[in-house]
């Protein structure tokens, strides 16, 4: 079948031409596993690969044999690299399960430079509370970490597994919300040192509102926080816009991961439309856990009639009938998704992997499924 030949080539094509592959989609569709398998595949081709994930997945950490709370990327253990055929190919695979607080602290230290000021900032209670809050921080962290690695040459390929998010594009939007806020013009209103009548008048309204709503203590803390933060705003902002530009450019690709469920598909469609609006390069859609990839045909063995075995066999045949119906349905879904993309991208249906396959074995099996045929 020529169509499936073409679609099985998409991952190889991307690996040959891109430096960053972003996996996105609704929660629970196998995004993290897909991202890790792509990384394994690339490393088996001899690339130096980094897989960045925000979802603190224990299963993935175990599969790769890396720690969940590292401060920097961790290479997978040598015996696993050997087992996965990475060592023989001369590639390398590192993984980093980002801890938002670790990344934020590093950013602050790097930007402030002065150790004493940095320490004061890191201990500020608003900063500490801010990094504990999950919403927004994960997205911000992903963009921040990505920035670091697109601006150096330590890796040939970075695979980013986007944060689990109801709003699929939050990871792009949330940092830009932060960035907008951080624009000097706006935040200066909060700074006590600003002079000029209008500024001061505006600042006093803002101050009254804030202290009325938040209480005087917090208002003062906020002012102090913004004061400390002032030096690092423009730098953060710049990093984010560099990352966004890179993601819109020719070295990046977005893959939307979906399952066959209608909810996941509708979200994938929504995501596709939005990324197109934003001018981001969606290269393809990965259909996970479908029945669309053909299973091996088999012949009926000789079983004594009316035996327990033959009874079980006929019940299993009923299962097969259901499986066939599911396959029929999923082929329809595959065609539908292909139609969304038209000429502008490819669809790849990944094979189903038995849950008995776990760890690295599962990732390898999926990686093989990405290039099979």
């Amino acid at each position, binding site marked *: 079948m020529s169509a499936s030949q073409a679609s099985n080539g998409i991952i190889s094509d991307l690996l040959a031409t891109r430096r960053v592959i972003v996996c996105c989609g609704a929660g629970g569709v196998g995004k993290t596993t897909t991202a890790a398998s792509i990384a394994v595949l690339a490393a088996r081709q001899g690339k130096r690969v980094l897989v960045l994930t925000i979802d603190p997945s224990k299963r993935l950490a175990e599969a790769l044999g890396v720690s969940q709370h590292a401060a920097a990327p961790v290479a997978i253990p040598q015996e696993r690299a050997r087992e996965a055929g990475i060592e023989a190919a001369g590639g390398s695979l590192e993984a980093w399960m980002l801890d938002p607080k670790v990344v934020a602290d590093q950013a602050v230290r790097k930007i402030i430079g002065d150790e004493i000021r940095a320490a004061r900032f890191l201990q500020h209670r608003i900063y500490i509370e801010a990094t504990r809050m999950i919403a927004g921080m994960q997205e911000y962290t992903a963009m921040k970490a990505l920035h670091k690695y697109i601006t150096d040459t330590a890796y040939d390929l970075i695979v980013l597994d986007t944060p689990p998010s109801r709003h699929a594009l939050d990871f792009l939007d949330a940092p830009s919300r932060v960035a907008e806020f951080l624009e000097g013009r706006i935040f200066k209103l909060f700074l006590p040192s600003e002079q000029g009548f209008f500024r001061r008048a505006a600042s006093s309204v803002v101050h009254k509102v804030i202290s009325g709503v938040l209480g005087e203590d917090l208002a003062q803390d906020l002012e102090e926080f913004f004061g400390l933060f002032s030096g690092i705003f423009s730098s953060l902002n710049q990093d984010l816009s560099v990352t966004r530009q890179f993601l819109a450019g020719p070295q990046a690709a977005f893959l939307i991961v979906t399952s066959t469920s209608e909810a996941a598909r509708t979200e994938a469609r929504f995501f596709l439309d939005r990324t197109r609006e934003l001018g981001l390069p969606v290269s393809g859609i990965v259909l996970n856990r479908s*029945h669309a990839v053909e299973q091996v045909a088999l012949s009926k063995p000789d079983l004594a009639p009316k035996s327990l075995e033959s009874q079980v066999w006929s019940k299993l045949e009923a299962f097969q009938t259901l499986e066939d119906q599911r396959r029929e349905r999923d082929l329809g879904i595959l065609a539908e998704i292909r139609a969304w993309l038209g000429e502008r991208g490819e669809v790849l249906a990944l094979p189903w992997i038995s849950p008995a396959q776990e760890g690295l074995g599962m990732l390898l099996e999926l990686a093989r499924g990405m290039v099979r045929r």
Partner: protein
Amino acid sequence: MTVTKIAPQDVVLADSRIELPVAAAQALSRRIHLVTGKGGVGRSTWSAVLARQFAARGYRTLLAEITEPGQAYSPLARLWGQDDFGVEPRALETGIDGVALSPRRGQELFLSRVIHVEALAKAALASEAIRKLLDVAPSFRELGVYYHLLTLLKLLHINGAERFERVVIDLPATGHTLALTGLPEILGRVITRGPIAEALREGQRILNSESLTAAWVIALPEPLPVTESFELIAGLKRTHVPVGGVILNRLRKDPFNPLERQVVEGWIREGRSIPGYRAAVELGENRAALERLLNLVKEPVVRAPDLEDIAREPKLVVAELASMLIESVTRTDSGGVA
């Protein structure tokens, strides 16, 4: 507390009805229901099912999701053929109003209540700086949602009773859920006095009340979702939200008796080629996950059948599950099944 270990032979997979433990049926008599779970487990479906069930039993029901209207795809609103819910409750069908719990709307409600000088409130809302601050400052979005919810809970019906007797809230994925339920504690550390602190305490009184609120953790009978539901329960408990139970969704029907099952499991272990291989393997996975869940959690486990091969359209799935749930609730109420 000792938990009786569940033996494999006691694990019964769903038939075409919902198994509703008595404790779970009792939790359904509370007013506020928080529906949560990892993405893709059927959270929106179950939010809609609970709302339907309440409405069918005659309660004025509010179905809420957390979103800024027009900004994100809403699977819940789609069930009623709408793009999204509005920030004001709007009738979806008889007995059910839908609403978007919006950070912005909540912030507006809050500001106009606490800032008594009207000109100042207006100036504040018009100020770009305040807007931006509310958008990005940590927790302010959650605070808006929180306040919006509090306001809706206080609405009165024309007869003087509560306007909404049952409130079902479709909560976002794990991290965001705990950011919301943990808000009073996290924000309370920073803000100890003033109107925000008051609102948080008021919310805490309601959401942490065993007689008013029940959180439902939706899960699938697969290893990862089961682990995550266990972690989510622990998180909810940490934030003092009473857990109504786990709703184990999409359990496949098991046609095998214990002897037959041994044969199937043996064949799978031997790596023999059998028809319906994937379905058989997944059935085993279902059983193992259910067994593990029953042994891991003390909370009641509601078991719901997989309707994948019967109904694909989300609307039909909701209708089917809702009528099964109503049947189970009625059965439990009349003392039929424990």
